[in-house]
């Protein structure tokens, strides 16, 4: 079943078209990689899908419901969560508090509950501890988030997004700026999240090895247009993709 359906999606800024007529689906259980050379419109597409930007035309359907142009806070409550490249944590709050804040939208008390009882707090922290455990951050729970190493901060960012119990998790360049060791560690955490929680994932990533190692399907964008779609093996041997990445000469040589 298709979890996310992107149909003829377009987004322009002034006269500049960043994403043109993109159509693809994400199926339940997929780990979809979204790749493309610099300036291909990946981040714009990502922002439109997750509700940070409005589409200029086209629709985004999540679990059969049209979510195009809906604010991010609503799509999250329907089960679509995302991470950001930078500033993905609450630096002054403790690590456990960071993860607990991720659970707020799904907590049962709503906006006005929880004034007199602290049951919601216990429940939120229990959930947060489970997530931290999955990400290997339990030991760090009492530290302030800004005291973590860079790699740990990136992992915490994903943990916050996962704390809202998403059905679909969208990751914006999760390993950018990490050293190979940290990147491998994050990749293994993501694999574990995938197998233990059964979360469907979409990832924008430059780092080819991470994409090839994690994703079962890959979508390639170039100049805002979808140029290829398939398994990692299919995509890397596609001449259009090679051309987009390496330029024409490389293909003819």
């Amino acid at each position: 079943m298709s979890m996310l359906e992107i149909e003829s999606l377009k987004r322009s800024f002034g006269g500049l078209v960043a994403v043109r007529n993109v159509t693809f689906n994400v199926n339940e259980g997929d780990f979809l990689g979204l790749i493309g050379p610099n300036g291909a419109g990946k981040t714009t597409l990502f922002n439109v899908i997750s509700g940070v930007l409005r589409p200029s035309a086209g629709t985004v359907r999540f679990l059969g419901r049209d979510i195009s142009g809906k604010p991010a806070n609503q799509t999250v409550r329907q089960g679509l969560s995302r991470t950001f490249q930078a500033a993905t944590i609450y630096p002054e709050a403790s690590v456990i508090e960071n993860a607990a804040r991720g659970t707020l939208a799904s907590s049962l008390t709503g906006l006005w509950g929880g004034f007199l009882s602290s049951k919601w707090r216990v429940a939120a922290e229990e959930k947060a501890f489970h997530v931290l455990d999955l990400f290997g951050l339990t030991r760090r729970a009492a530290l302030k988030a800004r005291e973590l190493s860079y790699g740990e901060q990136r992992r915490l960012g994903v943990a916050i997004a996962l704390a809202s119990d998403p059905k679909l998790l969208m990751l914006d360049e999760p390993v950018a700026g990490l050293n190979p060791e940290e990147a491998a560690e994050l990749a293994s955490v993501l694999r574990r999240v995938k197998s233990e929680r059964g979360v469907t994932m979409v990832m924008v990533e430059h780092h080819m090895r991470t994409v090839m190692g994690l994703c079962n399907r890959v979508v390639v964008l170039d100049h805002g247009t979808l140029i290829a779609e398939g398994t990692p093996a299919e995509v890397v041997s596609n001449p259009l993709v090679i051309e987009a990445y390496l330029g024409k000469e490389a293909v003819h040589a």
Partner: protein
Amino acid sequence: MNPPTIKPMYYVGVAVAVVLAALLPWFAPNQFYIHLATLGCMNLMLVLGLAIIARAGQLSMGHGGFALVGGYVSALLSMRGWSPLLSLFIAGLVAAAIAAALGWIILRLRGVYFVLVAFAFSQIAVLLALDMSFVTGGANGLVGVPPISIFGHVLLTKPQFYPFALVCALTTLLLTWLLYRSPLGTMMAATAENQRLTESSGIDTHRVQVIAFTIGSGIAGFAGALSTHYLRFISPDSYTFWESVSYLTMLVVGGRDGVLGPVVGVLVLTPLPELLRATEGLQHIIYGAMLVLCLMFVPNGLASLVQTWRSRQRVAGTGAAIVAEEVT
């Protein structure tokens, strides 16, 4: 922050402080101290209102405007025969309603614009009070506002009024503390720290900020009304821009996170204007200097000094626990 596991010592401290405050009329050398304590109670409410707004990441430079509105609403209603005890709450609700309407329009925008609109609103509240002299008495204000009476018990003198002000202030303090611990309070703190991330955790941050602004301004309206019934007088000069600034000073000097900050700020800064009444300019210079110096050297306020010390102890404790765990 995590709700720190509250130690019995903490409760004892709070209880002692409350009892001392309640017993003040019996050991105060003269009525002036009771007057000062009453002003402190009202300042505390106003500063807590401002703190709630700041908790959600906004700064209101027009806080006095809402107190002014509250003061006039309650004065006018009670002078037309309404029970002051009821009109106090109506004053708070009117101020909250104005804040909700204004906030809904304006809080979508960046902080600077919000500051301007709240600032301009308070100026207009003063102008309207001056201009609509047929209702507000113009520059002379309203004299002879009825005192508060509770079940026929009229609060006329300072020692009579003080317990009521203290109950109001402590209730506000308790409610603020509960708010900060609730999911809504957690959302407010999250919004202030990283709005985009909070939004993408499924929280409508705009709504959270409007609610904070509404609650904070409603408290200001209530406190303004309370003060009007205490002084039995209100005029356009009662809450000018500089009053808004003094609440901001108390908040920044005391500390912006937690409920301890406002208490410390009010305790430190309420006595100052009254003690330096003779040289009017000097108290404001001291306010200004404390504001600037605090921002430079203790940007999280005097209360943060206590918290830093406490968290250092806590970190030491956690470290010891981890070591113990590794040994076993």
